[in-house]
Structure formats: structure tokens, C-alpha cells
């Protein structure tokens, strides 16, 4: 647990340093796709609950924004037919992004800190003897990732920024695999190794604190 607090402290202090001292909030947002993909994809995650919320700040540079996001994930999966794992994880993500001043495209990068715990249960079905159940050792660990992304957004009612984001991340993690191939704040870790990667697309809704001004068409 000390590890987590230490990392949260480091990430937050880095992010605060990077900011204009006023730290004016531009938007608050949520990720709306991460849950859905797990319900419709082939990945065998059961009962996933994934929440990711963002607070985005103005920076001293125009069209440059900084955001902090907190994530939570709770799910289980049958690793093999006989091995049930329950995962719970938390994440802190700090993001820097730059918006194109002529259109609604943007790009940026994020630093992600992810913490997860995994509980496992082996169940061997018996034909001649009663079924055998046992717990596997409780496991916890952290993951760090550097994520790059690019996307575009559409503005609804000049207030709700719907963001379509394509992203990819390089991951170093001592949890997730082999214990559980998922990292909160990132998604499925594709390689069963300490060094892994993740790519994906998502949709985010950002509620702008200040209504976006009407665009004037001028030559």
C-alpha cells in the first residue's frame, strides 16, 4: 500500500508542477466504452465494472490541456476451465494533450500508474471423487505505462465534448500477467510478460465547465 501512495504522490506532484498555478478546470469527463467492449468482445471477463473519470485543466499555453483521471475496475474471468480469478484495480493517469486550433483534432500522451489485486480459485471437477477447490495465493502489484493517443471530438450543445480516441501504450507491470491480463486505466495487456503493450479505441464524454464559444466563420 505504501508503494501506491508513493506513486500517487509522485504523479500528482509532477502534474501540479506542470500546471499554471491557477489550475482552472476546463472539463470533467468519463470514459464510456471500456465497459461495453468487455461485454461484447471475445475476452472472457465476467461481470466487469470499469469506471474512469477525468478532470481536465487549462494550462498556460493556449490549446494545451492537462488532465488527471482516476480509474477503478472489478471483474473476474476463467483463466482456464478450472481457474477462476477475481481482479480489483485502481489507476491514476496524468495526461497532456494539444488541440489543433483549426479543427477538433487532438493528440497527447499519458503516464499511467495502475495497481491491482488478484484472488484466484482452482476448481478441479471430480468424476470419482468430490470436486476439489482451493485458493491460489493472493497477489498484488503495480503497472506503469506510457500511452500515446490521437483523436477527434464533436461538440454537442456547445458543452458536451464527445471524444473519439485512438490510443496505444507500452506497459511495464508486475501484475496483470500471469495473474490477470488487465490493467486498470489501460485495458487488456496483450503479452504475458512484464513488458507488454496495449492498443485500442475509446469514446469519452467531457462536460465543458465553460460553454464553448460559437465559431465565427471568417476569412
Amino acid at each position: 500500500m505504501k508503494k501506491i501512495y508513493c506513486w500517487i504522490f509522485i504523479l500528482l506532484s509532477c502534474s501540479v508542477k506542470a500546471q499554471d498555478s491557477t489550475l482552472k478546470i476546463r472539463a470533467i469527463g468519463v470514459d464510456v466504452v471500456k465497459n461495453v467492449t468487455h461485454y461484447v468482445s471475445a475476452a472472457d471477463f465476467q461481470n466487469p465494472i470499469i469506471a474512469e473519470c477525468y478532470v481536465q485543466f487549462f494550462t498556460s499555453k493556449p490549446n494545451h490541456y492537462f488532465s488527471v483521471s482516476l480509474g477503478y475496475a472489478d471483474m473476474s474471468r476463467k483463466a482456464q476451465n478450472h481457474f477462476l480469478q477475481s481482479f480489483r484495480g485502481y489507476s491514476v493517469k496524468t495526461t497532456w494533450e494539444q488541440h489543433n486550433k483549426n479543427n477538433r483534432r487532438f493528440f497527447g500522451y499519458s503516464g499511467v500508474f495502475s495497481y491491482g489485486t488478484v484472488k484466484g480459485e482452482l476448481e478441479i471437477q471430480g468424476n470419482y471423487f468430490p470436486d476439489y477447490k482451493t485458493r491460489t495465493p493472493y497477489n498484488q502489484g503495480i503497472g506503469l505505462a506510457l500511452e500515446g493517443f490521437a483523436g477527434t471530438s464533436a461538440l454537442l450543445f456547445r458543452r458536451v465534448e464527445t471524444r473519439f480516441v485512438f490510443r496505444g501504450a507500452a506497459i511495464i507491470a508486475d501484475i496483470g500477467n500471469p495473474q490477470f491480463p488487465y490493467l486498470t486505466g489501460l485495458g487488456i495487456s496483450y503479452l504475458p510478460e512484464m513488458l507488454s503493450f496495449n492498443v485500442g479505441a475509446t469514446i469519452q464524454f467531457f462536460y465543458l465547465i465553460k460553454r464553448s464559444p460559437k465559431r465565427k466563420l471568417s476569412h
Partner: protein
Amino acid sequence: MKLFLVFALCCLLYSCGEQCGIEAEPVLAIQFRTEATISKVAILGSLQDVPKEGIQPIQRPNALGPFFPLNLNSDSTTYIFTRPNRIDTLTVYYKKHIYSASNTCGYILDLEAPASGKTYTTTFKRIEVEYRSYYIPSQGAKLNSQGEESGIVVKIDEL
């Protein structure tokens, strides 16, 4: 995209031969090194009888079989062999071991020889018990069906 598919295929092939420990009720393999006729096998605590078709020794040299289930809810399993004019018993002891075998498998269940004490008790004259891991790594993967290459093997040398 092509590169990614090739990479994914390589990963898949690499992990193909790996057997992640005990995934179903494990079996004990018996190797009769002498001629024997078994008319019935009973297992203590078993929910059902072993079918008669599956109890006869395989008479090829070094061949394993018959195979009998092991009780995971206990640290030993006792078999009662009925032969013409004689009944023999065999109790095999083992220890369950859960460990993280590899990145692909994660935690697995395996059976090992007990850390101390006896490995078997029997009324057979001479036997030998061999403990092979139920986990087979992907390197040098061997085909593994019905415990042919893994698991506990009892070699009966003399009845």
C-alpha cells in the same frame, strides 16, 4: 498489421505445447512389469467403481496403464486390487503444490512426493513410485494424454 499477425501466431505456437498442471481429475499410471490378471479394482472413498474394461494391465514393455484416479481431497489414495485367489492393496501418498509455473499458465496445481515420510504402502512384493510433474513447459513439449508423460507412476515389479 501483417507483422502483428505473424507476431501473435509466434506467441501462440510458443505456448502451444505447455500443459498447465492439473486441469481435470488427475490419474495415477500403473506399469506392470510382470504378468498380472486383475479382476476388480476398488478405490477407497470413490463415488463410483472403476469400469472393468479399464483395469487390465497393458502387457507391452514400458507401456503405462491402467490409469486410476487420484483423490485431491486427501493426501493419499488407496486402491484395492482383486486378483484370482488374492487381494492386494496399494496406498500412494502425495503432496499438493500450488505455484506460479509460467507467465502463460499462472498458478497451477501439481502433485509432488511428500516432503518426509513414506511415499507408498502396499502388499505387493516390490514396487517403485515415480513422481513426474503435471506441468509440462512449452520447450521440448511432449504430447501428453492420459498421463503418459506426466503425473505419478507406480511401477509394479513383483506381485
